[in-house]
């Protein structure tokens, strides 16, 4: 263990010379190779947030309902009835490109552990996915593997996947995004922390044995890809959902006993991270002996044991005298809890091997005192050109009908049925709104309440305007839960960006975080935690900046949930919000002209807040029969989606928007102006809804009626779209599976 620390060794560990000097200063001596490995993973971007931390500190994290903000395994908000919603989103982007099935599966496993570690029973999963063009065989392989991995893990463990979103863009071809959100329910006064305290208390290891898999996974996730990335496959872990199910049930049973001081899962940076973080949080030290750690391979070094990212492992601190009780519960579930160390008074992480100290580092040097960088930012050169959009240069806009059918078949817009039927979305019998029907909604058994959940981000908008694009992501995610009748009460974010060492990427990041923070402050939505994923780039080409927001909305009366689909012929169709000539960054421009260009839609957050409150109030009053927000594809696609799965056509007539005249119809039908929602209302409630909108200063117009078997849209009296519902629904509902069936036909 006396390998000299050369530049090559530092590079292999992803550490700079300056960072190494800092380690020397902290230690006052040359670190052992085990210590160097520990520093390297804890100071990796993935664990330390060294590039993002200064920006994340500006986000709003407090509020009357917040029970737990950032810093623990997950955030928590009060949902009444003495209960807490515990939730978080996390990325598993890099592993999912290298090995799609296991990468995605272990991402699900990791976020589930974060939730039950807090003492909450997980009841819902969502995922936010981004892939390249489905025309690429590689992308289809990646997507099929990711979906199967999410299904394989979530289905086995019995937590329903109730929603999420998927979008496609070439920038994600070599860097798919796999963001997984999990929500659990616990007693508000029984939330458990990842803390170690009480000198002499035993430190237990339980779960899967430690192997050599995943060593330096956190470091891998902190670097960009190149053509050698496939060689990193050994750094991806392999999941065992059955082991996780045992851990979940056993840990929840142990938590009922109050015998625990704290508990943490071993995720990124494995035993290293859990040991020093628990000690740091509890203001104590933790001493372990790696020789006691259950191992599934022979001859593992302390370095390998400390850095392994083998899945399905937990670290527990047990109150003195309660050890036998805890061991008994794990035995019941055929798990063997092993005492590997104890809590010490000295704020240090001490690692022994057969009693000989092999690493000893102050906890805080690894956590709070990790390097923090205020990396240089510079407005990207592409912006000026990308924002300039001269429609005249695009020729003619195309016939409305052709645009409409092309958009319905665009994978970003098309039904995701091929995906979500592979997920068990009904287990636990809480799912009130099925996937594809709007925000995911789960009831909270034992109460009258339900929770609406949505994850959203339009990367094109963020690319064109990181500040406003991030605000639009906040607005869309919260609008989606409001459509279901949910009052947004908390959020979690997953910030996916390219290489932060490039100043223009760091500029995107800084702007997006500021936009997200400002929007959440205005809308009163605290962000209780999340995850940052940087270096999402391959050979110098980055992903669209994709700051995903997952919002939790509280529905007071589970029986008043609102879905996207029309209900009855004769219901009035009302457009809340106003159409504007805003085609910048639209799906229309991308699909029809191959462009990501223009000014992104404007956003008035005060008006957005009023709209959302109107939706929540209307749902609570039971007078809104369906609600669906206008997003990709604009008003025409939104109307169609309200008709799909409802067997009800629609006939509307709307005011046209703006100049130039040749573009009026396209801009009216397919523009993506924000803060718009299509609702349907029974005829006797129309005046009441319009009056409520007027009182809230939300623009509202009765634009048509539900019914028939066609989708009909007129602009100022002239019919521009008149298509059979069944044929349109066929295009929309089979577009994605078409890509995969074609692949099978070739293979």
């Amino acid at each position, binding site marked *: 263990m006396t390998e000299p620390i050369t530049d090559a060794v530092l590079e292999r560990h992803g550490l700079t010379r300056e960072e190494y000097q800092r380690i020397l200063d902290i230690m006052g001596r040359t670190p052992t190779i085990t210590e160097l490995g520990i520093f390297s993973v804890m100071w990796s971007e993935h664990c330390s947030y060294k590039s993002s931390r200064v920006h994340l500190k500006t986000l709003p994290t407090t509020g009357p309902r917040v029970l737990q903000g950032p810093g623990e395994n997950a955030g928590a908000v009060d949902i009444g009835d003495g209960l807490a919603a515990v939730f978080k989103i996390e990325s598993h982007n890099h592993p999912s490109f290298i090995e799609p099935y296991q990468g995605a599966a272990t991402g699900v496993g990791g976020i589930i552990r974060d939730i039950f570690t807090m003492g909450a029973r997980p009841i819902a999963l969502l995922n936010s996915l981004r892939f390249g063009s489905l025309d690429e065989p590689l992308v289809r392989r990646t997507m099929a593997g990711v979906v199967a991995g999410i299904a394989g893990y979530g289905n*086995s463990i*019995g937590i329903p996947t109730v929603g999420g979103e998927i979008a496609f863009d070439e920038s994600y071809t070599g860097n798919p995004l796999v963001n997984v959100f999990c929500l659990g329910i616990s007693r508000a006064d029984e939330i458990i922390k990842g803390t170690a305290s009480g000198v002499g208390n035993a430190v237990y290891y339980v779960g899967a044995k430690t192997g050599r898999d995943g060593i330096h996974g956190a470091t891998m996730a902190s670097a960009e890809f190149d053509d050698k990335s496939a060689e990193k496959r050994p750094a991806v872990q392999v999941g065992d*959902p*059955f082991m996780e199910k045992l851990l979940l049930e056993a840990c929840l049973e142990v938590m009922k006993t109050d015998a625990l001081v704290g508990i943490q899962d071993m995720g990124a940076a494995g035993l290293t991270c859990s040991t020093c973080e628990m000690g740091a949080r509890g203001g104590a030290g933790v001493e372990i002996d790696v020789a006691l750690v259950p191992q599934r391979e022979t001859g593992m070094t302390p370095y390998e044991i400390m850095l392994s990212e083998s899945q399905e492992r937990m670290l527990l601190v047990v109150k003195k005298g309660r050890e036998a009780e805890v061991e008994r519960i794990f035995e019941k579930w*055929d798990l063997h809890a092993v005492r590997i160390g104890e809590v010490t008074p000295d704020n240090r992480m001490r690692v022994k091997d057969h009693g000989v100290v092999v690493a000893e580092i102050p906890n805080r040097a690894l956590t709070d005192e990790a390097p923090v960088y205020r990396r240089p930012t510079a407005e990207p050169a592409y912006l000026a050109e990308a924002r300039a959009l001269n429609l005249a240069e695009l020729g003619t806009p195309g016939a409305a009908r052709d645009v409409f059918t092309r958009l319905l078949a665009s994978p970003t817009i098309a039904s995701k049925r091929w995906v979500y*039927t592979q997920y068990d979305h*009904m*287990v636990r*019998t809480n799912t009130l709104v099925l996937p594809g029907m709007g925000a995911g909604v789960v009831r909270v058994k034992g109460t009258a309440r339900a929770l609406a959940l949505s994850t959203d981000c339009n990367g094109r908008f963020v690319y064109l305007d990181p500040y406003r694009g991030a605000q639009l992501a906040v607005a869309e995610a919260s609008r989606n839960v409001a459509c279901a009748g949910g009052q947004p009460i908390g959020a979690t974010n997953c910030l996916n960006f390219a290489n932060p060492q490039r100043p223009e990427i760091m500029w995107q990041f800084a702007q997006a975080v500021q936009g997200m923070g400002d929007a959440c402050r205005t809308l009163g939505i605290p962000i209780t935690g999340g995850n940052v994923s940087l270096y999402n780039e391959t050979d110098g080409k980055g992903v669209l900046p994709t700051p995903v927001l997952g919002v939790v909305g509280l529905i007071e009366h589970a029986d008043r949930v609102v879905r996207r689909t029309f209900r009855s012929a004769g219901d009035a169709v009302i457009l809340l919000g106003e159409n504007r000539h805003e085609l910048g960054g639209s799906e229309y421009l991308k699909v029809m002209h191959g462009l990501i260009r223009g000014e992104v839609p404007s956003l008035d957050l005060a008006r957005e807040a009023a709209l959302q409150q109107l939706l929540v109030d209307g749902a609570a009053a039971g007078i809104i029969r369906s609600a669906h927000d206008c997003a990709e594809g604009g008003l025409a696609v939104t109307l169609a989606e309200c008709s799909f799965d409802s067997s009800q056509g629609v006939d509307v007539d709307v005011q046209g928007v703006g100049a130039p005249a040749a573009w009026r119809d396209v801009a009216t039908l397919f523009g993506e102006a924000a803060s718009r929602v299509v609702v349907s209302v029974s005829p006797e409630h129309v005046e009441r809804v319009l009056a409520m909108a007027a009182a809230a200063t939300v623009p509202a117009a009765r634009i048509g009626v539900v019914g028939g078997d066609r989708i009909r849209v007129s602009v100022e009296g002239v019919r521009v779209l008149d298509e059979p519902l069944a044929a349109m629904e066929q295009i929309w509902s089979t577009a994605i599976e078409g890509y995969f069936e074609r692949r099978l036909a070739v293979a």
Partner: protein
Amino acid sequence: MKFAVVVFPGSNCDHDAYHAAKDVLREDAELIWHKDTSLKGADVVILPGGFAHGDYLRTGAIARFSPIMQEVKAFAAAGGPVLGICNGFQILLEAGLLPGAMLRNRSLHFRCEHVHVRVEQTDTPFTAAATPRQVLRIPIAHGEGNYYAEPEVIERLERNRQVVFRYVTASGEETDAANPNGSVHNIAGITNDARNVVGLMPHPERACELAVGSADGLVVFQSALKALALAPATVSAAVSVLEK
């Protein structure tokens, strides 16, 4: 009446079956750990869905060795009503309480969605309250629900009226398109010779409340109440009535 819901370590629909019996039907119900050796006086036994031991081997292949399965077998042999749902059905096949085996879905994908099944027989304790050929809208959620048995076994099942549920269209027609997994003869559920053990792949316990999309599955549980109400006190007495 008391329902026993067996809990294998990887069961994940145990709470749902319990919820249906206890909270929806308001009957007595108890979760029974798979290492237990008593069914604790239950009148009906449910083997719930899930992945009993991870099912990395064949589904249900390890579960049949759990201590409680001796009790379940004895209970079934005495004529007690036993319902296996999804993984529970797979376990009944592995335990030899029902004939046949499961293959992977013909799509090779896990599938979760509402399907329609037709009640083929009403003289079992889990269909007694249904009307003949009643069509139920119930979810499936499985990767290995493609029921298979040798032709002579299928022939015997059909001849003895042991096919209890079949996948059909919403209007009750048996078509290939209505078959979500490739099962022989669109078989969704079967019973044993004595007609007291029933296994099915769809999840009736997930369809017991309109709030979650369908209450069509309730009839399966109500059937157990009806069947047992026909005879008082003991299970064997109840089942002997059924057999007549």
